[in-house]
């Protein structure tokens, strides 16, 4: 098990190496002179030349890449061109909102999708099953920002249950937090509800046709116990993987959701940084998102092993 674990962790290294090369190349390929951009409009030729030397921009590609990687590894992500603050500081300010949004989304999607998938599997072929599966196809097709605006229109503009925009941290006002996070998390979760419900259904159908389910039924166990305890536990492997993959892909949706709902998180920060051509910020954010993606996949694999004792040898 330890060798598997170490091997799996080791596998993330080449991935992150390629990611950092891609992310670094982004700045390298940028049209225009970064020194000019950092120095601003008012800088003289000499200022820019000095800055270029100071930043090491006159060095060859791989020297610059190595220097950059060394800086990143020591925790120095550079300085934001836009705010002149260290990139790490700005990211720390914005991280909270995104983490809360992601947590709320995972909770909502799991809470909605697993029961829906189980119900669809239990009453397979019924009208209920068909409705749940049709909703799931719909969930795959409606883009996040469309869901977001439809929800805002119905629940914020018409019913006035939720605020239209903005984010309240939970430390400030718990009720305000719940009100501000519900609609964004709901629109972000739709596609994952669709995905997780499908996998849950497929996995439950497979498990419930197993011999041990027939035995449990013959033993006279309550159907609810057979479904929720016996079957779901055995069906949970692909479900956990899908939730893991879901969280990893959620990172892309965060950008859109935060823009629609005006949440000051990392996704919003990425869009702002791209629009203001704040390249150090863009690099750091893409790197961070990729690192999160790789780590979530790693954790999913480890969880997979913990759930299934057969893999623990």
């Amino acid at each position, binding site marked *: 098990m330890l060798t598997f674990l170490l091997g799996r962790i080791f596998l993330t290294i080449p991935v992150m190496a390629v990611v950092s090369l891609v992310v670094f190349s982004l700045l390298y390929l940028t049209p225009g002179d970064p020194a000019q951009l950092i120095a601003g409009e008012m800088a003289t030729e000499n200022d820019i030349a000095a800055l270029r030397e100071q930043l090491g921009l006159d060095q060859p590609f791989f020297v610059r890449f190595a220097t950059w990687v060394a800086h990143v590894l020591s925790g120095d992500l550079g300085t934001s061109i836009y705010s002149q603050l260290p990139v790490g500081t700005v990211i720390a300010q914005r991280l909270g909102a995104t983490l809360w949004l992601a947590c709320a989304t995972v909770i909502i999607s799991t809470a909605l999708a697993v029961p829906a998938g189980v119900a669809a599997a239990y009453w397979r072929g019924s009208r209920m099953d068909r409705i749940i599966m049709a909703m799931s196809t719909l969930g795959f097709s409606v883009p996040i920002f469309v869901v977001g605006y439809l929800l805002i229109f119905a629940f914020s503009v018409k019913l006035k249950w939720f605020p239209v925009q903005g984010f309240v941290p939970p430390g400030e006002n718990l009720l305000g937090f719940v009100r501000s996070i519900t609609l964004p998390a709901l629109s972000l979760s739709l596609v994952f509800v669709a995905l997780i419900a499908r996998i849950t259904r497929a996995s439950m159908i497979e498990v419930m046709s197993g011999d041990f389910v027939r035995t449990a039924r013959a033993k006279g166990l309550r159907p609810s116990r057979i479904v929720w305890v016996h079957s779901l536990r055995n069906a949970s492997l692909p479900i956990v993987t899908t939730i893991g993959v879901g969280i990893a892909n959620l990172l892309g949706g965060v950008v*859109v959701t935060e823009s629609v709902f005006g949440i000051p998180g990392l996704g919003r920060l990425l869009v702002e940084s791209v629009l203001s051509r704040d390249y150090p910020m863009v690099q750091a954010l893409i790197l961070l998102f990729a690192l999160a993606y790789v780590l979530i996949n790693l954790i999913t694999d480890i969880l997979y092993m913990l759930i299934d004792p057969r893999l623990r040898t």
Partner: protein
Amino acid sequence: MNSMLSLTQTQRMLRHNRAAAIGLVILILFVLVAIFADLIAPYPPSAANSIDRLQGPSTAHWFGTDQHGRDVLSRVVVGTRSSIIVGFGATVATLLLGTVIGLLSGYFRVLDWVLMRIIDGLMAIPAILLAIALMAISRPSLFNVIVAIAIADSPRTARLVRSIVMSTRGALHVDAARLAGIGHVKIMLKHLLPGTFGALAVKGTYVFASAIIVEAVLSFLGLGLPPTVPSWGNIIAEGRLYFQIYPHMVLFPAVILSVLVLSINMVGDALRDLLDPRMKWE
């Protein structure tokens, strides 16, 4: 039990085909609208009229007007063209790029290791974020949006093609071709490529749907097509400022976008069941 199962399966297939037929008709309608957009649009899409600003839906303006008094229906109709062109262009580019990389990687073991490490790295960056990052270093234009989407989407296609090629590489007819002295390129194109067509057709429909969404998202964020080009994402981006009082500018293009994506997915699901039973959900 068995006969019941096959009955529900048949019913499901029939229903699926009906869904596919509906999806296909809607998709063809969208393509026709894109081709004949200039004839269908009741007004020129950029004709401003300050008297008719920000009107709700009416008989003169079915989808209402925007903040410059431009007819939203006309802009949505012409915007269909942007969506279809980007969707089509990005799909062709993604499939081409992905197939070339996948063929090379699946056929030449030496190349495989290097190419797959690059693919793994690219796949660790969520596609939409990679597209955003690529748009950060290029100007907003139709061509750049297509390239950005193709680069972001092609790693997944490459993996698919690679896995098929690796499973057919050892087949007898491929060995025979190799022994007959046929060149690598010809083996790849004549004996390995045809095996990927079914999976590629299915993949293509999903790439088409996702490219249309990504274009709308990029334009919505201000990173896609230039604001002068009517596209659904641009219309929604402009409309969001007035959303609370005049939601029609956002809701009409948003719903139309969803209908197009849904119709493509319905066609894709049917194609998947037909051509690639391995990818079936059930």
